[in-house]
């Protein structure tokens, strides 16, 4: 398999649009890297530059130490899986998987060996004689993956491969892809706009916005230590809540809409050292760090807010409570045994140990 190195990669279109800006990343052999970000952030463009489908405007792409910028896509030893997995309708599953190899004039016995091996990995052995119309959505997607596997490439590139599947199938296929990565031991780069997919699949995640890499980290670090407001808002569902507030002179508390909340000493120290005393900052609190149970409210009396619930949403294993505070809609994820309902005025305790602080102007994290 392969190490991939992207050094100062830029993509500038002829009309001047700067789609990818100074992208740097070292991907180790067998890593599962996820590119994630909102639509138009440059994630697919970066993947397409690795594939050779888009020219690299400047910078260097190396696979196993070899410069790939001017190497033809077909000679890069990569395989791609996209969301619109068209299968040849008149061909069987076997022939669909073998077609690319036949085009490349691979010997027949070798094709047979590769197709059967891929079918075994993907649990398609019993379906090899079927035509695409006789397959379910998930099975078709597996055939599309099979077409990539038979090439035995150094690198797998996947661009939103699950987007066309329904929610249930997507969850199932997510597990399949994860297993596939383990069994093939391949280097994989996977593009998605779905942060759940990113968090569950990736060894490391690259979060992008407007063509610029925001943060490259493990899923846990991205969630717990986002480097800026964008990453904090993008990773996690429901989104992190953001409240504007003013820090006290010594940063030991923050006032949000007239309510004073105590800042834990370690965070207060970090804020104070960066001279944020007396300044307006953005406080970020994840929905699961807002508690309505009496025991929390009693023990964390120095970080309690009071608000009227506008919406109560029961999801089975959890409840979302929505309320307005400091001119912003806030979401709390609480225990389903809560007695709170829409219209109730409730006290919520914020877990300030897990709170995040962002600079109001630069949106960069100042304390995690």
């Amino acid at each position, binding site marked *: 398999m392969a190490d991939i190195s992207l050094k100062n990669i830029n993509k500038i279109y002829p*009309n*001047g649009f700067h789609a990818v800006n100074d992208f740097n990343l070292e991907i180790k052999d067998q890593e599962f890297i996820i590119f994630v970000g909102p*639509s*138009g952030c440059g994630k697919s463009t970066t993947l397409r530059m690795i594939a050779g489908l888009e020219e690299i405007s400047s910078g260097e792409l190396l696979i196993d130490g070899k410069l790939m910028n001017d190497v033809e896509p*077909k000679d890069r030893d990569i395989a791609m899986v*996209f969301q*619109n997995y068209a299968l040849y309708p008149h*061909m069987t599953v076997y022939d669909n998987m073998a077609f690319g190899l036949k085009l490349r004039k691979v010997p027949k016995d070798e094709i047979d060996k590769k197709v059967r091996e891929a079918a075994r990995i993907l649990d398609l052995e019993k379906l090899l004689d079927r035509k695409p119309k006789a397959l379910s959505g998930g099975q078709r997607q597996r055939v599309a993956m099979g077409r990539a596997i038979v090439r035995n490439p150094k690198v797998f590139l996947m661009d939103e491969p699950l987007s066309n599947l329904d929610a249930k199938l997507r969850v199932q296929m997510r597990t399949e892809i994860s297993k596939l990565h383990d069994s093939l031991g391949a280097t994989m780069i996977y593009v998605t706009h779905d942060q759940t997919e990113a968090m569950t699949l990736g060894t490391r995640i690259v979060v992008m916005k407007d063509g610029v890499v925001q943060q490259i980290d493990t899923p846990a670090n991205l969630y717990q230590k986002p480097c800026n407001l964008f990453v904090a*808002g993008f990773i996690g569902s429901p989104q992190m809540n*953001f409240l504007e507030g003013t820090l006290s002179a010594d940063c030991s508390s923050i006032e949000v809409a007239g309510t004073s909340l105590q800042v834990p000493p370690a965070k207060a120290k970090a804020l104070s050292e960066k001279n944020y005393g007396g300044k307006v900052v953005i406080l970020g609190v994840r929905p699961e760090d807002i508690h309505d149970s009496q025991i929390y409210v009693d023990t964390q009396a120095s970080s309690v807010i009071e608000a009227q619930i506008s919406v109560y949403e029961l999801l089975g294993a959890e409840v979302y409570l929505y309320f307005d505070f400091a001119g912003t809609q806030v979401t709390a994820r609480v225990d389903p045994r809560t007695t709170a309902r829409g219209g109730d005025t409730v006290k919520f305790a914020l877990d300030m140990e897990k709170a995040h602080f962002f600079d109001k102007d630069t949106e960069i994290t100042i304390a995690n």
Partner: protein
Amino acid sequence: MDFNEKKAKLLEQLNKATGISFEISDSDLSEEETLNKLKELIVHFNVIDSKTGLFRLFLRGEIAYSDAATSLHRFHIEENKIRQVFYLESQHDYNKETVSLLKSLLPESKDVVIEIDSRHIALVINYDSIPSNEEIVLAASSYLDMLETEAFASFKLSYGKPVNSFKELPSAYKDTILAMEIGNTFNSNGRIYCYEELGLGRLLFNVPDREVEAYLNKHINIDLLSQIDEETLNLLEAFFANDLSLAETSRKMFIHRNTLIYRLDKFADLTGYDVRKFSDAITVKISLMLYNYVRNK
């Protein structure tokens, strides 16, 4: 296209069909008669020896319907059939593998893959009932994804409305070419362009250059537009796409509502246009489209 350009194009086709280089040095014919005469000669020399050949000549307007119609029966082509024309454009010259891939993907003998030139391919696909736009987009995406994954070839695709008869194919083909041209002008990063969804682009595409310049100078001039960073341009596009909704735009772009307001205020300070007002939003939207038009020319 003026007379001389049309004449040159037809002479080139005649040259291609006959292998002889012709010139018109002295003629009593009017311009229209000259063009018709050249077309007749092309039809005469272009031996229609295949179904694909017939489609190619007819789509490109190189043979008249009356001439094409005489060959329909020979190639078992139904006159009245629902057909969809797709027009594919490659960044670079495509190879034979691309064409054989498309043919494998379209095994129905009624569907046709037509090599237009070294960078363009047209597909004429038969349908039993009028396809929905979703079906067409799905088919289009499948063709493009298949070409990329199997042939490592990057294409763009344009399409128009499905047609009900063979006779309507040249006009459908023209729509796809225009869609590609307009799409490349106003949305050069796009991949699939639909003639019916070109919206304002179809109108602005025909505005003379001096009018474009005058409009930009009166509202937001090019120098000012060139100072706006990509992030703000993306935000403006998203704001327009989300019907000028602050909440929806900030949600979709994963930014804080106050950040969006701050950026829109900054844009208003720079240009004098507050896109939260409908009339200003229209002006900015048109200015940005014209700016793209100028940049892509």
